[in-house]
């Protein structure tokens, strides 16, 4: 560890710069993002907590090895989330037949209902977190991820574009389609329960 170092006053990008010369500074960066990346991986990968911890460890190692490729025109968080996104996709490809688990539901999805558009206005706001996680698992993974990033990880369109390596306009379209799909899925579920 670096003695008498106050990491709180340093930005992510400054810490990334310091990490290039001394890996001890990397600890402060990881500490900042460990919980966030773990949660993100759990949300998009549908794997157990143990597997997600292994994945996060690999993600941090990969980020460290590639720290000299960090593009300083991006936010460090976007770069790290991008590595996490790519690593989860590689994991899926490698373990195609692995049984997918449902993920820890939480209430953060309710941010979606605060957005003022026709699609979310009509949604049943009494939906539970558990039901929402079930529905999100049923829609296309690309739609699920974009909704997770926007409403649960609270990323703006530019950040999501940087993470998924897509143009901002495409992100807008993806979110719109994802919401439509989500609404359709929730409504079809409601009909099923009402029968």
């Amino acid at each position: 560890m670096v003695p008498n170092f106050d990491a709180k006053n340093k930005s992510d990008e400054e810490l990334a710069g310091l990490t290039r010369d001394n890996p001890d500074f990397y600890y402060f960066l990881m500490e900042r993002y460990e919980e966030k990346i773990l949660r993100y991986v759990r949300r998009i990968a549908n794997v157990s907590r143990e597997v997600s911890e292994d994945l996060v460890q690999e993600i941090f190692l990969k980020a460290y090895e590639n720290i000299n490729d960090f593009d300083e025109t991006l936010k460090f968080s976007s770069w790290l989330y991008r590595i996490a996104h790519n690593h989860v996709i590689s994991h899926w490809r490698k373990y195609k037949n692995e049984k997918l688990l449902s993920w820890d539901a939480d209430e953060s999805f309710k941010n979606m209902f605060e957005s003022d558009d026709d699609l979310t206005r009509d949604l049943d706001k009494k939906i539970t977190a558990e039901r929402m996680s079930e529905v999100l698992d049923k829609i296309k993974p690309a739609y699920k991820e974009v909704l997770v990033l926007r409403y649960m990880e609270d990323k703006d369109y530019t950040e999501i574009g940087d993470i998924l390596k897509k143009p901002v306009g495409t992100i807008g379209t993806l979110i719109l389609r994802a919401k439509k799909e989500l609404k359709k899925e929730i409504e079809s579920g409601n009909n099923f329960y009402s029968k």
Partner: protein
Amino acid sequence: MDTNVSQKVIDKIKKERLAPKSGWHFFLLRAAVLAGLSFFILAGALSFGIIFDIVRQVEITRIIGRPGGPGVVLLSLPYLWIIFVVFFLVLALADFARTRHGYKYRLLHIGVALFVGMFFLGAVFHALGYCDSIEMYLENQFPLYSRIVATPQGVWSRPSDGLLSGMIVQNDNVMDRLELEDWRSNRWDVDYSQATIEPQVSESLGEMIKVIGDKQADHNFKAEDIRPWDGEMMRLPPPPDLKGAMPPVRPGKD
């Protein structure tokens, strides 16, 4: 935190003495992507330039309005170079998407920008005469090239469609008749008494010309329009050794 993944990672980095990959490694990777992109753009632009070159020499606008003209034009389009343009455009597009900020732009926008860029760069190469030299080199060095690509010589060697070209070997100004040797060394008696002769045509012996008109009988041709073969950029030297100087020609239907 009960897991403390961060501590495990730091321990692993120290234990295994892991170090970040050097900045040079990433610099070289990015440079390779940019070099590839530049190469694909240049290759696409040269392909465009050669298309311009062929289209200019073939003079499609002169042919298309004639009876059977659209068919001749369709057969004479430089398909090989059109395929090359598409091929290099796709490669450039894929390479651009691999650049650091390439993902920020829509593929359609990048595609249009690259297409326009290659088009104008191709026009510059064509204007500078680079493409003419490349095409001439290909024709002379690779006989197969003239069989695959419809060369201007091949297109203008269709007397039945009213298209004839070659070198003036005799000219009778009194009778308004000239003798023309085509690209396959056949001699044609051309009557130009009612023809329009472009000002660039000097009617001198050894001059390369294009003739639009009607085939009358065996090796007799009535000219309607006589044009210079290549404007000011004469591609072939004058006689005496006509056969040796002629580039290979794709067999026409006559």
